[in-house]
């Protein structure tokens, strides 16, 4: 299932070398059109990031910092007020909340999204069986999505982002609800993908296993700052950042399952 389709979106310049995604000076403000029901919020103020092929980048930030807004702009689900996003290749997007059709079965979900990606039936079946085996949901292929547990829904959500073998993978809190084995399988998968040249960006409140990332950038006050070399700090209760987990557990992962 070779992904040979390449593109450049909103970019007025070619991407350099190994760079497969570049966001320049992204600004986004949410404004209420109705009086008394909201306030103007400047979420992004000139945020920029580059991701190279085969690189895995962590994007951290406090609750409400604008991480999901940034991700939606990078995938094209949301327009930026200013700035440009250039992408070389196909993109896989795993949104924070599973955006799936509740009343379709898992098998039908793969068929629908695979068809959207332009895959034929054989390619869809191959991808579906591969990720079902890898993430452990073979027994649920004929279950409706709304009959799955939160963790299994998240596995389908992630698999839909991966099934067309994208060049750039943008994951928003992808392992929320995963059990420990699936969490480890997820990281093994990211290693395989980066070895093949896939660029991966992962949004998380915490980056508790910083050795898994090539770079870590923090979104704060509307801009992205490279904090890869910053010393890990004990969790300060603010719910974000490059934190060292005191008990060794990974936030969002169900260790007991």
């Amino acid at each position: 299932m070779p992904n040979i389709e390449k593109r450049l979106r909103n970019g007025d310049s070619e991407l350099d070398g190994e760079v497969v995604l570049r966001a320049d000076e992204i600004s986004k403000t949410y404004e209420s059109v109705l009086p008394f029901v909201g306030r103007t919020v400047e979420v992004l103020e000139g945020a920029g990031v580059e991701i190279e092929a085969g690189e895995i980048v962590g994007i951290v930030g406090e609750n409400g910092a604008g991480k999901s807004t940034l991700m939606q702009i990078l995938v094209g689900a949301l327009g930026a007020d200013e700035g440009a996003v250039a992408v070389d290749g196909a993109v896989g997007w795993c949104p924070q909340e599973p955006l799936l059709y509740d009343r379709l079965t898992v098998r039908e979900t793969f068929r629908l999204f695979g068809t959207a990606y332009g895959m034929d039936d054989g390619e869809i079946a191959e991808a579906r069986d591969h990720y079902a085996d890898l993430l452990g949901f073979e027994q649920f292929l004929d279950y409706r999505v709304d009959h799955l547990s939160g963790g299994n829904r998240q596995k389908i959500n992630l698999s839909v982002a991966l099934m067309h073998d994208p060049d750039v993978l943008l994951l928003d809190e992808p392992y929320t609800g995963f059990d420990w084995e699936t969490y480890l399988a997820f990281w093994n998968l990211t290693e395989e993908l980066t070895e093949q040249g896939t660029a991966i960006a992962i949004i998380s409140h915490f980056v508790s296993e910083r050795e898994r990332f090539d770079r870590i950038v923090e979104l704060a006050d509307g801009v992205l700052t490279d904090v890869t070399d910053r010393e890990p700090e004990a969790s300060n209760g603010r719910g974000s950042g490059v934190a060292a987990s005191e008990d060794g557990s990974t936030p969002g992962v169900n260790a007991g399952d």
Partner: protein
Amino acid sequence: MTDVGRADRISVGVGAAVRAFLREPIQVAVLLALPLVVIEGYGYAMTAFPEFPFMEMNAETMGRLNGAIYAAAFLSGVMGLFQVISAVQADERLQLCGYSRAELFVTRLATVLAASLIVAAVSLAVLLWRVDVAVPTVVFLALTAAALVYGLLGMLVGAVLPRALEGSLVLVFLVDADDFLSSGMVEIDTRLVELFPLYHPHQVFQSAVDGSIATGDALVTGAYILCLLGVVAAVYVRVTGNGGVLRG
């Protein structure tokens, strides 16, 4: 990656949308049961009214006929509304993955059409049980037309006002007023009524019950549906999603 054609995407999309619709048993049960309740309820309610000189049939029968049009139009309208708003975020993801907005519109339209056929068939069955109908085939087509008109209007409301409560309220009042004023139950001396969505389907429906087919109204109904289809498709495509940026 294989280049899957538009026909394949539409076929898979329509199949998924119809399956999702049929897998909600309460939704299907409501579509099957409510026409009976509405038609009989309207008929019973009208028995309280006296026979007015301008009424061409007894009040109970007139109530049942108006109930049939109302049931077909309102239920289909609500289906159209919820087809657009119920999975709006998943639809957005599907568009980012490669479905065009036009293809997605066709899949939603197919489900609305299926719902329209169901409510029209059930409404006709109830009418055949309770009322003498001269030309059932044309009555069925008129009910389907009324359902389709409001199915499209439901999609339009869903596109511009994507909120369940507010959209449903708009449809309730719109269909109610339209059905009442288009029915001829009260004589209104204005050509404005002829522009109402249900006016011409109502004329076709009424004539088919009597045995005289209002061909002119049938043609206007067809043209009305085509124009409405164009408007709703344009609005839907204009206001929903960005389309096809993930596929590359």
